[in-house]
């Protein structure tokens, strides 16, 4: 299971009230900022507003929630993404059972996509080959955008699902996402009127073992993009906990999520959040879809998102490539990214499958030479990456093609951290992060519980410490305080104490009544009470756990 940490112990340190409030907040807001009022509105009737307020305080104290203030004084709360994903399995432990491999069959509609790491690599190679010049509007040329798009498999429907704009700064969604990721990985920089590769950062990224590379990108999608809406975050958190390589029915996943998705505002969605997220993961090459023998759709992870799973897979060592005498290069799935990059720069990719197949030809070698490579370097690279001498035919052919190509060496479009670094600018991410609260004033100081109930000192201590019988007018006064502070009251009726959460005072016919909820057996019964319907009462001020 893809648990980042074991989270059972933190739960024990939280009150049931705080645990409940965290669950409500995560369920309804995911990792997006929310106001106290919003939480209270979606909270359960069994809890009073004051209990939620104290729970928020408790969660802040436990550093599971941060509080910020907007310029005009509005206070917002937010469950940081790392907390969200750490606590998701704790609060929502229910998981579906996997399906036996023998029950799985191929589904015609499924088109496998290369993993995102390779999609990015191929798109970056296309950028280098097609040119990274920026137009007067400061974006890549139309041709480059089109060429680049061919290597990316992200569908436009993902934009709506994740609440992205369909276009950003003149880029179609999938190219915008690619540039956004590249900016966050720091692999592109802006240099005068063009984009360029940041050689060091790019080399660093390429050095990552394949599984680590993909795991990093999976986490990036989860922590940065899935959290853009509460339902995508919930689906992503659930799906990320599925065991890699095991098959799960989408219906089962939907069912798990449905049990806590009641009242999702956008009821018009055609696809459930789980299905939309899984489809996205397939477009990014990380998941695979199939059908069971009963025709139900199922999916599974092809990559894991944690270091632990990489270790389980046991393959962090790069596999060597194979060069055949007919000038084809076979690249196994776990070949290093740097080797693939070199091949992108000198050969034509003819098939992306389990094995990626490249073909060395006159055009690709001439183009590599044009970008500054020499035949000897190219041949030496192939021998290094394959671990054996090049076949004679390949040597002979490459040498001929290199000689026929232009001798003049143009500089590749990359920037090292050296001489030209003064002119380079970091590329800004294209999309803002809706969970980000760095730009707001972080509220560090924790208020006391008492400060949540303004005027607490003004009321007699006995009102909140002992059950007493009061005059009708005092009863009303207590109810007004309870309503103001959103605290429950304990009512004694014929010797039995019943907690009651008042919602509203109702005046009429020279008398008054209070509507609210009687808390019984973990449930809330809506009632309207007249002041003579209970004997004794007291205010219940929640305490910090």
């Amino acid at each position: 299971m893809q648990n980042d940490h074991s989270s059972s112990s933190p739960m024990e340190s939280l009150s049931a009230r705080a645990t409940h409030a965290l669950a409500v907040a995560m369920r309804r807001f995911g990792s997006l900022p929310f106001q106290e009022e919003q939480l209270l509105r979606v909270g359960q009737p069994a809890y009073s507003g004051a209990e939620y307020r104290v729970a928020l305080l408790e969660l802040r104290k436990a550093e599971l929630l941060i509080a910020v203030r907007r310029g005009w004084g509005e206070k917002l709360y937010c469950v940081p993404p790392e907390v969200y994903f750490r606590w998701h399995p704790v609060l929502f432990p229910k998981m579906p059972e996997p399906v036996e491999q023998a029950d799985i069959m191929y589904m015609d509609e499924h088109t496998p996509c290369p993993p995102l790491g390779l999609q990015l690599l191929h798109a970056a190679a296309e950028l280098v080959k097609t040119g990274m010049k920026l137009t007067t509007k400061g974006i890549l040329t139309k041709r480059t955008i089109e060429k680049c798009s061919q290597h990316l498999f992200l569908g436009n429907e993902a934009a709506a699902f994740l609440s992205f704009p369909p276009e950003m700064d003149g880029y179609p969604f999938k190219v915008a996402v690619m540039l956004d990721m590249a900016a966050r990985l720091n692999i592109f920089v802006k240099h005068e009127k063009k984009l360029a590769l940041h050689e060091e950062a790019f080399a660093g990224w390429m050095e990552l073992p394949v599984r680590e590379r993909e795991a990093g990108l999976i986490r990036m999608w989860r922590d940065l993009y899935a959290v853009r809406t509460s339902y995508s975050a919930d689906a992503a958190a659930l799906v990320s906990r599925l065991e890699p390589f095991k098959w799960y029915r989408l219906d089962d996943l939907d069912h798990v999520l449905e049990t806590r998705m009641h009242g999702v505002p956008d009821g018009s969605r055609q696809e459930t959040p789980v299905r939309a997220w899984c489809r996205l993961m397939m477009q990014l090459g990380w998941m695979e879809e199939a059908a069971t023998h009963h025709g139900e759709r199922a999916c599974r992870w092809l990559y894991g998102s944690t270091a632990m799973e990489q270790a389980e897979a046991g393959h962090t060592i790069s596999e060597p490539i194979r060069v055949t005498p007919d000038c084809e290069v076979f690249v196994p799935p776990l070949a290093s990214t740097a080797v693939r990059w070199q091949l992108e720069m000198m050969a034509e990719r003819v098939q992306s499958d389990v094995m990626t197949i490249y073909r060395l030809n006159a055009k690709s070698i001439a183009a590599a030479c044009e970008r500054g490579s020499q035949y000897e370097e190219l041949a030496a690279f192939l021998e290094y990456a394959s671990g054996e001498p090049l076949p004679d035919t390949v040597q002979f052919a490459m040498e001929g093609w290199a000689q026929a190509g232009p001798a003049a060496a143009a500089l590749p479009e990359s920037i090292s951290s050296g001489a030209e670094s003064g002119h380079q600018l970091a590329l800004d991410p294209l999309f803002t992060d809706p969970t980000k609260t760095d730009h707001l004033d972080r509220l560090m100081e924790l208020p006391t519980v008492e400060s949540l109930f303004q005027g607490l000192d003004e009321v007699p201590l006995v009102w909140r410490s002992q059950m007493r019988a009061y005059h009708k007018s005092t009863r009303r006064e207590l109810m007004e305080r309870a309503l103001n502070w959103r605290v429950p009251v304990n009512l004694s009726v014929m010797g039995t104490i019943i907690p009651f959460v008042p919602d509203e005072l109702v005046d009429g016919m020279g008398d008054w009544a209070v509507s609210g909820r009687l808390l019984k057996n973990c449930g809330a019964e809506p009632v309207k009470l007249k002041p003579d319907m209970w004997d004794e009462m007291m205010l219940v001020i929640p305490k910090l756990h």
Partner: protein
Amino acid sequence: MIREDHPLIVQADSTVLLDDRHIEAEAAREQLAQFADLTKRPGHLHTYRITPLSLWNAAVSGLSANDIIDSLARYSSYELPLKVTGRIRTMMERYGKLRLERSEDGSLMLYGEAELLEQLSDQPELKAMLLPSPNHEPDARLAKPEDRGMLKQELTRMGYPVIDLAGYRAGEALQVRLREQAISEQPFQLRDYQKRAVDMFYCEDRMDGGSGVLVLPCGAGKTVIGIATLARLGCDTLILTSNVTSVKQWKRELMDKTTLTESFIGEYAGNSKQVRPVTIATYQILTNRRHKDDEYAHMKLFSERNWGLIIYDEVHLLPAPVFRMTAELQATRRLGLTATLVREDGREADVFSLIGPKRFDLPWKTLEARHWIATVECTEIRIPLHKTDRDKYAGAAAAAKSRIASENTAKIDAVKTLLEKHQGKPALVIGQYLQQLHKIAQRLQAPLMTGEMPHQERERLYASFKAGEIPVLVVSKVANFAVDLPDAAVAIQVSGSFGSRQEEAQRIGRILRPKKDDNSAWFYTLVTEGTKETEYARRRQLFLLEQGYRYKVMNWRPGIDRGDEAELPLNELYKEAGSP
């Protein structure tokens, strides 16, 4: 994706890559050969392809989808792509879904699941051929007997092979049996695999027998199997083969090994147009016509007698018009004989649907292990191009490049040295270009046999060669097919068609017959280093590699730039390719 150490990598598009250097490669290859076709073998990574036809042929041989998936999984480095296992299951399930049968009143019926038949009946290509059954059963359709071939062809094309159980006409009965002692006084008895091949074709217990292809290497006695089938069925038989020499060989074998006399055997080739109970014709004469708009006049041969069996020798060479004719002859038993199912024109599906599925396949290596054929050592020798020719090559157009590479004059020295090495062994030098062959013949002072040579003169040369009076024979591509040269032990190929797999297979077949002494034979293919010829050579070798043969690749290193004659001993003249 978890990697295990095995020799196969199965791609999602149903190609399979075999790492030839892996310790399990041989075992994996043996399995693959049963359900996949070798398409490419550059270096140590061989490419196979699993196609619907390769799967259906496997189904005919009794393999199940699970057998195939288990074999692949056993040797695969990575988990099998779901698409591949799905496709294997789908294709294998389709075999047997449709059956052609005769109803009690003799009409032709296509049986299958109602839903499938409904779907197929809606296809425009099939609409006119599939009629409602007389009783409107949903799982049956009526077909016209004359559409039998076309229907099978079309259904195969759509991915639904048909098991043809509609039976055959008996043909005119013919009194014939195999002799126990051949007229040539050689004892004659069918070898066990030859008997089995006939049984597999005949399929006495199964109605779907009686048509199909037997895949046997040259030297395995395809002609004998054809004759044995004819004798088993005892009916008038039309034998179609590739050239006149082969017609004569068939006739000779028929007279030698059966009770048929000359008056029963007709030759329908060249100037002879005899139609007799057993008639042997060439594909060429059947497709001969004066103008391209004319009818094929000789196609009438198919209906001139009540043939009970048609034998298609070298079925991979069957020309398109004969396919069309064959589509109309589905009620006649059809036997295809070949060393390879690979057709250069890619019409393997037509062979499957119109002649029949593969009924028997015998790898060459099995024959070799049992000494039914010679043990052959195959070597590709790469010869550098002389400096002056190198410049010529660099500046030449594509077509001219091949010619320059093929006719590399340095090859003559190599031929001479190789012949010296194998002195005393009967040797053939085989080539494509007459000019080159003339030069070689002159240099070796050996006779040259070409297509221009009259048949009588050819026969005389064969006889002298067989008698050992001529040690070396230089032959043009006329030697590719069905030429009986029993005592050749060395074949040196100096040039060939651009990568024709069948040609290489046929040429090597010239030296495969068992040898009296050490049962060894040598096949050399000479190619010009660093030219397209090496690429063609690789393609040509595909079929033999599929059959389990290995090519040693050597670099020829005489003092060619100095223009010296090679004087060093042979083993010092060539070194293992890749060594310094």
